């Protein structure tokens, strides 16, 4: 079986078999990343363009490493240095990149739906690396891969997603992915950060962290976007941290051996206590390692002959 699509735009439209295929294929690429010579010739002669309209180090580097380990040529465009500052629109920029025979475009953009608009315009494959508050599919896939590596069974898995659900594309992609595979997802955060539509996505909404953590096997912390602090979504960082920060004591409420995840970059002492972030329960760095393998898998599966 192979991935019969040109683009990876979201998790919402993937079926469980496609998700499983991406994860299984990533197993092989994890092996490649563990070798002394971390390179295979699978995408030789292909060009991957990283088109980033938002600052990002982790995701862009992860995609760049993934493409390079597959022997593709990689070009990075970032907003500060591109002609966007000269007034060019996204689609014109993309058409120009396509005219240079790019095979795959990896797009991060502040507007929800940007990747989809791009995919309809260009013949190149498009991978959504985060579009506004919409989705960040490769992050959810690498989170699933990390859980699977921990030998956790998705069916019936109890997962709590904690933090700013309203502005988190990571949370949305993870909710779609986890529920598709049969996990039971709880979300918890201040009421100002829990959008009204969430219960329609098949999750249980909580407002008290202690309640939400009771008996879960997985805790996904979201980054508190401190740049939003001026918007009066919560009174103070200190209060947020006291009510929704994950501490060692709170971790005790979860099932023993529970896994703590975070998409990074972490705010130590705000949403997650330093001793929890560095504890054995934390798989935060494994997530980063697995990100490369999962992105290799997606690049490989989308790069079938055009």
């Amino acid at each position, binding site marked *: *079986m*192979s*991935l*019969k699509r040109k683009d990876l735009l979201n998790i919402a439209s993937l079926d469980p078999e496609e998700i499983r295929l991406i994860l*299984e*294929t990533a*197993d*092989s*690429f994890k*092996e*490649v990343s563990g*070798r*002394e*010579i971390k*390179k*295979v*010739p*699978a*995408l*030789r*002669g*292909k060009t991957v363009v990283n088109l980033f309209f938002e600052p990002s180090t982790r995701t862009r580097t992860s995609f760049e490493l993934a493409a390079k380990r*597959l022997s593709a040529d990689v070009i990075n465009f970032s907003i500060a240095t591109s002609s966007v500052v000269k007034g060019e629109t996204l689609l014109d920029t993309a058409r120009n990149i396509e005219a240079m025979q790019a095979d795959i475009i990896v797009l991060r953009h502040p507007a929800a739906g940007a990747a989809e608009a791009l995919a309809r315009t260009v013949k190149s494959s498009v991978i959504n690396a985060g579009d506004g508050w919409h989705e960040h599919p490769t992050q959810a896939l690498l989170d699933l891969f990390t859980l699977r590596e921990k030998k956790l069974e998705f069916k019936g898995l109890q997962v709590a997603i904690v933090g700013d659900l309203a502005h988190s594309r990571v949370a949305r992609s993870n909710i779609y992915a986890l529920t598709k595979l049969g996990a039971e997802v709880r979300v918890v955060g201040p009421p100002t950060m829990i959008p009204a539509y969430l219960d329609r996505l098949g999750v249980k909404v909580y407002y008290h962290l202690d309640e939400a953590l009771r008996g879960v096997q997985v805790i996904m912390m979201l980054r508190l976007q401190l740049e939003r602090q001026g918007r009066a979504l919560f009174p103070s960082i200190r209060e947020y941290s006291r009510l929704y920060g994950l501490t060692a004591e709170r971790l005790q409420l979860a099932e023993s051996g529970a896994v703590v995840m975070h998409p990074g970059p972490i705010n130590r002492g705000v949403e997650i206590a330093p001793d929890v972030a560095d504890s054995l329960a934390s798989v935060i760095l494994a997530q980063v390692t697995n990100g490369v393998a999962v992105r290799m898998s997606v690049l*490989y*599966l989308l*790069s*079938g*002959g055009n």
Partner: protein
Amino acid sequence: MKQAQQHEKLVMDANDVARALTRIAHEILERHKGTKNLALVGIRTGGVHLAHRLAQRIQEIEQSQVVIGELDITLYRDDLSVRKDQPVLRKTSIPFNVTDLIIVLVDDVLFTGRTIRAAMDGLMDLGRPAEIQLAVLVDRGHRQLPIKANYIGKNIPTARDEEVRVCLEELGEEDRVVILKPTA
């Protein structure tokens, strides 16, 4: 699509397969005077099963273990950029350092030689073997690359449009090799 009606011709039965493997095991041991620095690497999927059988025979003959690796050559194929769908990836598992070892690649059928080219490139990316040799159960001819096997179970002359199938117990069938001829 495979044709529904195919003429099947048996070229090796279970005993023939067993004898050929036993002979190859002896040949490998004779050539290397034992199992020192020797490793078998099976090419997925058929080659892996044959490598395990060879290792078992070598163990019986020589009372010494030989290490086995499993190689998936998908990422090294030369047709990745022209295929419509990406082939399913399987895992490569070579739990030893190949550098300075004598590696015997094991595959079921030697045909164009393209798989072996890919396997050699794959192995080279894992280190620098002292030597790479090739053992195959069937050599059916029609090479497209300058590649030759060191150990051959049976040479079977075929026409290009025929298919050679190696059936193995590990894959849920009785051991045998058959030629499938397309019917007109």
